[in-house]
C-alpha cells in the first residue's frame, strides 16, 4: 500500500513538471501551430541561469529563481522575434526545422560555454518530508506539485478572464480575423511565448529543486516527454496539457512500479503513437479540418 502511494506521488511530482513544460508547447502550438522543439532547451537555459546566480554569484536562492524565470521569458521572446517571426508566412515545415535548429543551437552553445559535465545545483528549498500512510514524501516533491498546480490555475484564470487571454484565444482561433478585429497579433504571439517561457522558467526552477543538476542536454528528453504529454492531452488545449503531463508522469511511475523500468521510455512513446492513431487530437483537443 505504502509503495502504491509512494509511486503515485512519484508520478505526480515528475508529472507536474511535465505538465508545466507541456503547457508551453501547447500554448505555442495553439497560437501559431508550431511545435516549438526549443522549449525543452529553454528550461535548460533557465537552470543554468539559476546555477550562475546561486552557485557562481552566491546570490540568495530567491534571486536565482526570479532570474531564471525572467531569463527564460526574455529568451522565449527573443527566439520568437529573431527566428520565428520572419517565418510567419513560410511553410510550417520551415518553421519546424527552424525550431529544431534553435534547440540544437542552445544545446551546443551551452556545451561550449558551460562544458559538457553537469553543474551541481545548490539547494533552493529545503524542509521536512512528510510521512503518509507509511510512504515518505519529500518536501521538494510537495513543493513541486503545489507550485505547478498554482501556476496552472493562475494561467487558466489569465487565459479565461483577462483581455490578453481573450486576445490569445482569438488569435489561435483565427489569426486574420483577430487582426481585423484590431488585435495586435504580433504582440499577442510575443505574449504567448513570454507566458510559455515563463512557465518553462518555473519548470526549470522546480526541476532544479528536484534534480539539482544543470547539464546541456537536460532539456531534450524532458522536452520530448513533455511534448508527448501535450499531444496526449490534446495539443493546443491548456487543461489537456495538465492532464497529459500528470498522465505521463503516472504512466512512467507505474511502468517502473511493475518492474518494467527498462521499457519506460518505450511505453511513453507507445502511448503517444496509440493516442495519435486512436484520437489524433488527444484527450481534450479540438478537431481541425482543412477547408476544401
Amino acid at each position, binding site marked *: 500500500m505504502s509503495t502504491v502511494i509512494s509511486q503515485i506521488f512519484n508520478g505526480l511530482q515528475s508529472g507536474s513538471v511535465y505538465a508545466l513544460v507541456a503547457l508551453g508547447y501547447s500554448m505555442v*502550438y495553439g497560437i501559431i*501551430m508550431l*511545435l516549438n522543439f526549443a522549449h525543452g532547451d529553454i528550461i535548460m537555459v533557465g537552470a543554468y541561469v539559476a546555477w550562475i546566480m546561486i552557485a557562481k554569484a552566491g546570490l540568495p536562492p530567491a534571486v536565482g529563481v526570479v532570474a531564471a524565470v525572467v531569463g527564460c521569458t526574455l529568451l522565449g521572446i527573443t527566439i520568437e522575434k529573431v*527566428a520565428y517571426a*520572419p*517565418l510567419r508566412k*513560410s*511553410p*510550417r*515545415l*520551415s*518553421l*519546424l*526545422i*527552424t525550431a*529544431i*535548429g*534553435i534547440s*540544437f*543551437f542552445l544545446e*551546443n*552553445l551551452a*556545451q*561550449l560555454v558551460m562544458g559538457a559535465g553537469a553543474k551541481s545545483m545548490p539547494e533552493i528549498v529545503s524542509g521536512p518530508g512528510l510521512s503518509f500512510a507509511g510512504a515518505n514524501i519529500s518536501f521538494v516533491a510537495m513543493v513541486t506539485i503545489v507550485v505547478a498546480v498554482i501556476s496552472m490555475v493562475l494561467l487558466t484564470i489569465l487565459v479565461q478572464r483577462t483581455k490578453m487571454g481573450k486576445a490569445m484565444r482569438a488569435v489561435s482561433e483565427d489569426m486574420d480575423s483577430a487582426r481585423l478585429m484590431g488585435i495586435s497579433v504580433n504582440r499577442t504571439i510575443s505574449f504567448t511565448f513570454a507566458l510559455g517561457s515563463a512557465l518553462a522558467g518555473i519548470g526549470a526552477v522546480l526541476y532544479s529543486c528536484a534534480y539539482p543538476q544543470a547539464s546541456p542536454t537536460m532539456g*531534450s528528453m524532458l522536452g*520530448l516527454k513533455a*511534448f*508527448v504529454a501535450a*499531444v496526449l492531452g490534446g495539443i493546443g488545449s491548456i487543461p489537456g496539457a495538465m492532464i497529459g503531463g500528470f498522465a505521463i508522469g503516472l504512466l512512467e511511475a507505474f511502468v517502473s512500479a511493475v518492474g518494467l523500468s*527498462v*521499457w519506460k*521510455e*518505450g511505453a511513453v*512513446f*507507445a502511448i*503517444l*503513437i496509440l493516442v*495519435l*492513431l486512436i484520437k*489524433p487530437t488527444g484527450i481534450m483537443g479540438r478537431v481541425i479540418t*482543412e477547408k*476544401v
Partner: protein
Amino acid sequence: MIKQARDIPTPVKYLINLALFIIFLVVVNSMIASKTISGYYTKVIMLIGINIILAVSLNLATGYLGQLPLGHAGFMAVGAYSSAIFMKAASALPMFIALPLGLMIGGTVAGIFGFIIGIPALRLRGDYLAIITLGFGEIIRVILLNIDSVLGFNLTYGAASLKNIPKTTTFLGTFICVFIVCYVIHTMMKSRHGRAILSIRENEIAAESCGIKTTYYKTMAFVMSAFFAGVAGSLYAGYLGILNPSNFGFMKSIEILVMVVLGGMGSMIGSVISATVLTALPELLRAFADYRMVAYSLLLIAVMIFKPSGLMGTYDFSLSRLLGKGLSRLPARNASPARKGDDR
C-alpha cells in the same frame, strides 16, 4: 515539335552517364588500390556515399512526398542490425552472394518496418506525422537496446554493442549502391509514379481529385525511403563493424534531415551535394571542432530564414544536360524547359 526533340528516348544519354560513372568508379578505385587515395580519404569517401544514400532516401519522403518523418535513423538502424546479424551468421557464404543478400535483407527489413509504421503514420498529416515517426524511431532504439532481455538470447547485444560485424563495405560497393539508389529514385520521379508523389506534396486534395490513390503512393514513397535507409544502414554496419543503438537516436535523424533541408527539399542533387559537404566539412575543419555544432545549427536557422527552399531549391541537375550544353549538341533531358533557341 520541341517537346519531341527533347523527349526522344536517347539510350545514348544513359550510356554516357553510365560510362562516366564507370570511369569514376574505376579511376577512384584504382587510386585507392594504389594508395594514391589514402585509407583516411577512402573512409571519408565511403561515409559520404552512405550519407548520400541516407539524404537522398529521406529526400524522397521529405522533399518529394512533402512529409516530415523524424525517425529516419530508426530505419537505418533496423537495416544495419538485420544485415549485420545476417552477415555474421552467413560468414560461410561466398562474398558475392552474401554481400548483395545482406544489403537486400537490410533494405527489406527496413522497408517492412517502413510499411508497418507508414500505414498508421501516413493517415496523419504534417506535424502529427513528424511526431509519430519520432515516436517510432525512439521505440526502435529502445527495442534494439532491450530486446535481448526479452528474447533471452543475444541478438543485438543491446548497450554492449553488436561487434565483429564483417567489414564488407568497400568503396566500390558503396558507390554502386549510391548509383542504383539515385538512378531508381530519379527514374521513378520522372514517371507517372513520381508525378503522383509530387502532386501529393503540392496539394493532396487536388491529387486525390485527379484520381491518384494518395494513400498508396504515400505508402510506396515512405516504404521506398525506408528501404534505401536500410540499405545505407547495411553499408554502415559493414563499414564500421560495430553497432550501438545509441548511434541511431533522434539526433541522427535530425542530422540526415539537415542534409536534406540544406540541400533543398525536393532536389536530389542538392541532397547529394549537402551530404558530401556536410560529411567532408567537419573532417576538414577538425581544428574548429568545438564550434562545429554551433555553426551547424546557426547555418540551419539562417538557411530557413533567408532561403527556406534550401541551397539548390528544387533544382535538379542532369549530367547529360550539362554534357549536352558543353560537349555535344545532345538535347537536354526533360528537367528544364528547352528554349526555342536551343532547338537548332
